[in-house]
């Protein structure tokens, strides 16, 4: 009994526990129902490929929700930034600059959300409902009459980045020294066991090996990178795409920032008790605005990554995505009321919604049932999370 209690408190402390359990159950159900199709690379890759974009959006939504705010405008920001990026690209703007334009626009639209919030004090649900409609008007007016802008219509080659050999050499070396620098600080930290020091040494040797691998075949010759492939191309010969790596990488970076940095602490405090946070010197308005900018940035990045695969933009790109993402974040254990949540949970929640969509199709259940299933699971997740959280 005691042991059971301990496990339950332990589980209750991690917001993602409920989502992980739900994920496992649903995974098992599909795996048993349609083992041949569901447990195939084609099904799993299609789930992960389709969830990378909502998964990246979910990062910003989670940060905002933990700090007590809502962002309904991410789908529209994604639409605007995708359009700006593709429009610039087909008008001969260099590809990196075009991407930068898309990202800056995403940040600006997020900044507008944040500034509106702190200057008016209106709930962010209302503000971003307004900006969701307003931002959507941009692609709707720019792309007239339901047209679709296609990269192929401009008969361009796939954009290739040519990194000069020396730049590539320096960047690779810099990355290696960054690894060394971090390793040195870990090495010096207190309470390091011999085992962890051996692991650390192994990690350094491995990255040195990677360094040689990268540098030896390119002795100062230019390195060509296909821009679209880097963002969302196939990895190797399988059907898995690089967007999955972006999703995992961004989730990891922000998860560390949220749980290990002073900024992360400020985010939790702002959502947990804004007044108390302010009295302890946290600049809560700044935290909120920064989170809206991050959310806008990530929406833009997700949009560009999506364009890298679809190579087109239509005026309704991203519509409805915000609700699917919010549902996934809530399934992942983040509290709507703020102060509690996890990015790992959101990633699991996003994967779960994707798995549900694909799994239902494979079981030959009409695809419209998907929405009903998501709704039911979200409500069940909240009920279960509420129950478990009482034990915290």
């Amino acid at each position, binding site marked *: 009994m005691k042991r059971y209690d301990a496990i339950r408190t332990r589980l209750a402390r991690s917001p993602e526990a409920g989502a992980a359990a739900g994920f496992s159950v649903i995974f098992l159900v599909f795996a048993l129902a349609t083992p041949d199709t569901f447990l195939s690379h084609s099904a799993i890759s299609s789930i992960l490929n389709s969830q990378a974009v909502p998964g990246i959006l979910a990062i910003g939504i989670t940060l905002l929700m933990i700090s007590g705010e809502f962002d309904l405008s991410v789908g529209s920001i994604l639409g605007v930034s995708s359009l700006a990026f593709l429009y610039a690209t087909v008008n001969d703007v260099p590809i990196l600059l075009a991407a930068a334009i898309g990202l800056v626009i995403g940040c600006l639209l997020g900044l507008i959300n944040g500034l509106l919030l702190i200057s008016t004090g209106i709930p962010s649900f209302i503000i971003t409902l307004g900006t969701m409609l307003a931002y959507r008007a941009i692609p709707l007016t720019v792309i007239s009459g339901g047209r679709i802008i296609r990269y192929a219509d401009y008969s361009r080659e796939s954009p290739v980045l040519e990194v000069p050999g020396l730049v590539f050499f320096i960047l690779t070396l810099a990355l290696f020294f960054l690894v060394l620098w*971090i390793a040195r600080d870990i090495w010096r930290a207190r309470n390091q066991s011999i085992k962890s020091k051996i692991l650390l040494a192994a990690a350094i040797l491995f990255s040195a090996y990677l360094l040689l691998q990268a540098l030896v075949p390119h002795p100062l010759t230019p390195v060509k990178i296909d821009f679209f492939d880097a963002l969302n191309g196939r990895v190797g010969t399988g059907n898995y795409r690089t967007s999955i790596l972006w999703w995992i990488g961004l989730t990891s970076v922000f998860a560390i920032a949220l749980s290990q940095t002073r900024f992360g602490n400020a985010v939790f405090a702002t959502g*947990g*008790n804004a007044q*108390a946070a302010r*009295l302890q*010197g946290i600049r809560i308005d700044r935290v909120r605005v920064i989170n809206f900018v991050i959310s806008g940035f990530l929406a833009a990045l997700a949009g560009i990554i999506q364009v890298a695969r679809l190579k087109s933009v239509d005026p309704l790109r991203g519509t409805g995505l915000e609700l699917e993402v919010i549902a996934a974040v809530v399934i992942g254990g983040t509290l709507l009321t703020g*102060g509690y949540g996890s990015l790992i949970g959101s990633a699991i929640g996003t994967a779960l919604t994707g798995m549900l969509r694909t799994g239902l199709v494979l079981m030959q259940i009409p695809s419209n049932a998907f929405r009903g299933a998501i709704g039911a699971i979200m409500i069940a997740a909240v009920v279960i999370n509420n129950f478990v959280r009482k034990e915290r």
Partner: protein
Amino acid sequence: MVLLELKNIGRRFGHIVALKGIDFTLEDGEVLALLGDNGAGKSTLIKVITGVYPPSEGDMYFGDEVIRFDSPQDARDQGIETVYQDLALVPSMSISRNFYLGRELVKRLGPFTLCDQAAMDTGAAAALGEIGIHIRNASESVARLSGGERQSIAIARALHFGSRVLILDEPTSALSVGETRKVLSYITAAKKKGIGVVFITHNISHVFEVADRATILSHGEKVGDFSICDVTQDDIAAMVMGQGIPEHL
């Protein structure tokens, strides 16, 4: 030496006048009791001092300099530490995260700065233990603690970080008799270290136990400043209840 001086401070909220024409001084190594009925403006006055509500009018001096705190961070940077009446803990966060909120202990990892959670857990437990508060686990969430435990943590935090001024707004309201005695002893200890203490309470016998002076507010205005040696408990009670300054003073 005068540590903190306020001259002719006023504060309005819309058309509500919460404070009007307040002069206020605090010396180092002194315990000042700030007294008044509910709604007299005590909490508002200390929030003016700590930068939560910048004053609508009047000047503030810290040491010899005119100073203006626009946020609680500014006041904390000067060594002014406060236990607010409404406690100022975040229930969903752990004890140690609350303890170090806004001034986390960090470690460097290459170019990155991360929180040193282990150091904060031991640091918070040690600081709490130092003043006789023993917690099971510093990484436990504050939501699970009782009102008295929460108040103890807020007080411990202020004592730990307050280097020049310590402000306590009704700190003993949720405490047991034993815990209250401890808080009174911390006040005396802080005074011995040369810290200026502002102590808000409704318990007049506590005032006589630890305070050197009393400043009394009524309806947002100052009734007067009195050395504790010059007044009786009845005098203070009469003034707090808004009956004006007794004739013999």
